[in-house]
């Protein structure tokens, strides 16, 4: 009985600690020295793989209209989809952080919202991204090349067609949106998840690519569409798809753009 009690205690303790191994990061854990921008938790890829190889064929079936809206070129491709590209970590930048952006601080500080991170395994202080966007490829490539070329086409076979976003929720990697062909084709045209992360600004329905500059604490921002809010400070021209500006410049101008947005404003 004594042994049984002890084993029960061990088991209970293990379950408790294991549930703590992956947990939402606390504010105190999320600081510039702890974050791992390009660190991937394996479970996220398993989830993306399930969506790519199992769920999408089920969802699409023989529905050619849905196939087209999800970005795939033909029904024949649906049963051989793959997701070999490095995924993009996706970071949300909320309204209040943007409205109070301080250009004297490092631009990576804008990503330090708790909701963007999970803690790997206490007491390890490292925190990793909580959202990943996985490109989904059709495995065959036409002789004429991919209809939408991506930066990694020279090293990864097939063509980027669609995507799946996964998020860590209550210790489990769950898939969220499946599709978004327009977004993923723009992201992979100008960047890849091995060197770029995605900045999501929900209040403006905007996405950017970001990479670390040589300082390691500041971001360079690349536009994926012609930007309605930001101009190149030197030329005065619109910030165009594929162009890069410092994070400081982009966020300074976005701060002005969102300054008049109220918390209770209607949709936009």
């Amino acid at each position, binding site marked *: 009985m004594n042994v049984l009690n002890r084993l029960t205690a061990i088991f209970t303790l293990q379950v408790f600690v*294991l549930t703590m191994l992956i947990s939402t990061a606390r504010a105190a854990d999320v600081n510039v020295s702890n974050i791992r921008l*390009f660190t*991937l938790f394996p479970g996220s890829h398993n989830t993306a793989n399930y969506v790519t190889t199992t769920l999408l064929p089920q969802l699409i079936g023989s529905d050619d209209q849905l196939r087209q809206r*999800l970005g795939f070129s033909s029904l024949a491709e649906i049963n051989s989809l793959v997701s070999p590209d490095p995924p993009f970590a996706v970071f949300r930048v*909320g309204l209040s952080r943007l409205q109070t952006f301080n250009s004297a601080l490092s631009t990576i500080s804008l990503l330090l919202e708790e909701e963007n991170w999970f803690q790997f395994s206490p007491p390890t202080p490292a925190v990793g991204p909580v959202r990943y966007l996985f490109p989904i490829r059709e495995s065959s490539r036409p002789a004429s090349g991919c209809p939408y070329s991506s930066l990694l086409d020279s090293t990864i076979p097939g063509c980027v067609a669609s995507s799946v976003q996964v998020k860590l929720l209550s210790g489990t990697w769950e898939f*969220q949106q499946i599709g978004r062909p327009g977004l993923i*084709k723009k992201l992979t045209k100008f960047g890849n998840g091995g060197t770029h992360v995605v900045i999501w600004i*929900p209040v403006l329905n905007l996405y950017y690519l970001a990479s670390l500059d040589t300082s390691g604490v500041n971001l360079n921002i690349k536009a994926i569409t012609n930007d309605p809010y930001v101009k190149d400070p030197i030329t005065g021209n619109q910030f165009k798809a594929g162009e890069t500006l410092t994070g400081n410049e982009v966020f300074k101008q976005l701060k002005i753009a969102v300054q008049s947005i109220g*918390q209770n404003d*209607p949709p936009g």
Partner: protein
Amino acid sequence: MNKSWLFLFTLLIPYLTSCAQVEVSLSGDNAAIVDVPPYRFNPEDVLAATPLCPFTSLASYKQNTGVWCWAASAQMVINYLGNPISQCYIASITLQHTIPSDPPGCCMAEDSFVPDPNPPDPPGKILYDQWVEDARTKCLVRYSPLEALRKNGYTADTSGPLGWEDLTGQLCGQQKPYVSVVRFYDDNGSLAGAHSSVVGGGRVTPNGDKYVEVSDHSEDDFFLMKWEAFKTGVPGDFVHAYDYINIKQLP
């Protein structure tokens, strides 16, 4: 003593093994991904999901300015209901900015609009530049999709996030898409804006999982999402606030 060591060892086994899993990193161009061999269905064995009632002509529309999700949502539904009007027309009517400029009203505020550097006379450069300025001032605003529908001749009811039966009733019973509004919250808990999208379809997998088809007005964008997640929202991402349903043209 030996029992104590055995006890400690037993306690530590799971953590030692699990720690080995998480230290996988992507670094620069040497990115490496932990992959598992994909398990593939034989195409003939795939049990396809059942579409609820697919719309044959529901086109997705991107929002033509950074703040016109409401106009894009209204445009998608109004066009589906048989009235092919443009997004900037909807915005002009809604915002009562219908000056007879060329292009008219709010169309001069669209992201894709490039002002003519040498406009003809009339209207002349001064008046033309004033039109452009007025359009940007008066039209680049956030607004209620419900008001956009009403001011363009349609009615709708406001509802909380639809349950599956009500969703099916909209999409299949009425054969109509509906408008959905989500809210964002900052990490300090404060409201941080809202966004509208259009729900235009759904499907159920053989094991009973339910999915919705959503157009959120990003450029060329469309996605599927588990209905349960869409109905409530995703913690840390968005909260599903309400829906505009039973949309129909005023008599």
